[in-house]
């Protein structure tokens, strides 16, 4: 920075236009310039989420905290800043195009990242996010070249190892949380092994899908499951519709039988009481009572009978006189 300007001004000044009088002015300007350059290269600012590693002639000497800091000027000490407070995010199988209330994603070009084999040798498309922080900026900068790229490769390898040990159904449904947890644990182990200075905060599985050509048959399974529930529910509701009614009707039948029993016994008691009472009196005067009952009954019965024939007991044959019904009479007349 400083040298080109210095020389740039120098040769032009004395040689062509201006002779001696302006030499002090140039010298002053140079001094001011030098002071400015030294000042600017000695001061630097570290943002709140960062730390700065100070290198003196390439050798790491100290860590600078957020705020205004000083270093040896003119390139003797240089500074590399690392965001240690910020949470970094790596996306696999998709990229966030525009974050916002309605975040847009792009997945098409990244299917290669997402496609993997499961333990039952089926295929699945898994999209996931890894959130991590730089916990050791020294290691992050000086232990591994291209740490972020390395971290992505590690993450892909671990995810495939974990998914490769599970069935496709586990990955799609019941085992999701387990997959995420195990990836996190194993990824952290690999980070420690690589000395990369990264702490894995969280692994989040996003869309996990069967491959597109297989999707309809996965839906078919869901539909079949629904259908099963439907059939069972229908049968259950039919059961519930019929059985309580039958129970009620059974109660009704039994109650009616009990009513019958009560009536039958009561009637029997009543009848027998009546008979016994009657019989007590009958025993005192059997003949007259008998006659009375007979005559009363006859008096009740006979008036209703229209066809009555009274025959003298002395008459030997009653038949010739009788006209028993018209057909008989007509027959008799012809004869």
């Amino acid at each position, binding site marked *: 920075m400083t040298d080109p300007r210095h020389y740039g001004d120098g040769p032009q000044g004395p040689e062509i236009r201006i002779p001696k009088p302006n030499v002090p002015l140039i010298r002053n300007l140079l001094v001011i310039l030098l002071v400015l350059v030294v000042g600017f290269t000695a001061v630097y600012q570290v943002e709140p989420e960062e730390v700065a590693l100070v*290198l003196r*002639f*390439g*050798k790491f000497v100290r860590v600078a905290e957020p705020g205004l800091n000083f270093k040896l000027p003119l390139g003797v000490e240089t500074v590399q800043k690392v965001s240690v407070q910020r949470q970094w995010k790596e996306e696999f199988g998709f990229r966030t195009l525009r974050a916002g209330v309605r975040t847009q994603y792009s997945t098409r070009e990244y299917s290669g990242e997402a*496609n*993997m*084999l499961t*333990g*039952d*040798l089926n*295929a699945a498309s898994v999209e996931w996010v890894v959130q991590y922080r730089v916990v050791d900026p020294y290691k992050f*900068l*000086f*232990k*591994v*070249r*291209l740490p972020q*790229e*390395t971290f992505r*490769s590690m993450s892909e390898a671990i995810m*495939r190892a974990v998914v*490769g040990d*599970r069935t*496709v*159904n586990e990955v799609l449904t*019941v085992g999701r949380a*387990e997959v995420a947890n195990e990836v996190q644990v194993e990824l952290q182990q690999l980070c420690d*092994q*690589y000395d990369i200075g990264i702490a894995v905060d969280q692994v989040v599985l996003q869309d996990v899908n069967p491959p597109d050509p*297989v999707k309809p*048959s996965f839906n*078919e399974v869901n539909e*079949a499951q629904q259908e099963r529930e439907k*059939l069972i529910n229908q*049968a259950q509701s*039919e059961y519930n519709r019929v*059985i309580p009614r*039958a129970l009620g*009707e*059974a109660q009704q*039948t*039994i109650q009616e039988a009990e009513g019958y*029993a009560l009536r039958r016994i009561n*009637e*029997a008691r009543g009848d*027998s009481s009546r*008979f016994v009472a009657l019989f007590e009196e*009958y*025993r005192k005067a*059997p003949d007259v009572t008998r006659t009375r*009952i007979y*005559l009363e009954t*006859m008096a009740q019965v006979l008036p*209703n*009978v229209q066809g009555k024939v*009274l*025959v*003298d007991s002395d008459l030997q044959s009653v038949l010739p006189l*009788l006209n028993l*019904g018209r057909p008989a009479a007509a027959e008799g007349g012809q004869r």
Partner: protein
Amino acid sequence: MNSRFLILIVALIAVLAAFGSFYVVNEYEQVIITQFGEPIGDPITTPGLKFKIPFVQKVNRFEKRFLEWDGDPNQLPTKDKRFIWVDTYARWRITDPLLYFQRLRDERGAQTRLDDILDGETRNAIASYDVVEVVRSTNREAQLADGEGEVQLERIEAGRNDIRLEILRNAQSRTGDLGIEILDIQFKRINYVEEVQAKVYERMIAERRRIADRFRSEGQGEASRIGGERERELLRIQSGAYKTAQEIKGRADAEATRIYADAYDRSPQAREFYGFLKTMESYPATVDAGSQLILSTDSEFYKYIKSSR
């Protein structure tokens, strides 16, 4: 003027020499000093400001960090004659810069050599295992989902990790004289080649169909079971009620019979009177307007119709 010019030139040379004798070794670097192409002294592995003879000696910088190696995604045949795409990556570093400098010269040379070693070892390893061995790591039991039935996961002998370590060991044994060390190799991606993929999809579809059929059949079976249970319950309830009702009625009839018998069967006279009474009671109902009666004057009712005596 001439002497001033000379001084200026000497000063310039002095400055250049001064700059040329200093060099900076960065935190992530190691350096070998060469003099006319020939390495001089031990490699410098500590960072900081260093000195050398200007103009004559040259600084050759090498990485101290772990370096990346990304394998070329490749179609490889497995032992069970299936082709899979395998994409690997490895980490390596320069452990002996002098040896490295002599054998490989620079990183391009190193990458080429690593390609040979790692791709070759990967190919060998993949070719000597079935595809399932490369995919799976353990023989863990699968967690079953509803209706999936038993899933037969093939048992593995070695597994992904062992194969990986085998490649690593074999590769490491071949890099000892190159001044580099391979720290790790991982399978980044493994996938079927496209022709196989279609077959796999077909198999997956068939497998899902099987599960779907199972669900449907389970639903029908369960519904039939509930239907049968309903019918059985219905018949049990109805017949049970009938049985209870008949028992109740029977007991009542028996009781009534006993009561009647107690009343009517107490003596011959009572039996006879009961017969008479019942007969009398039945006349009004059995003899109606349509009946024709021929009555003799002998009968008790009409015996006085001829005479009062």
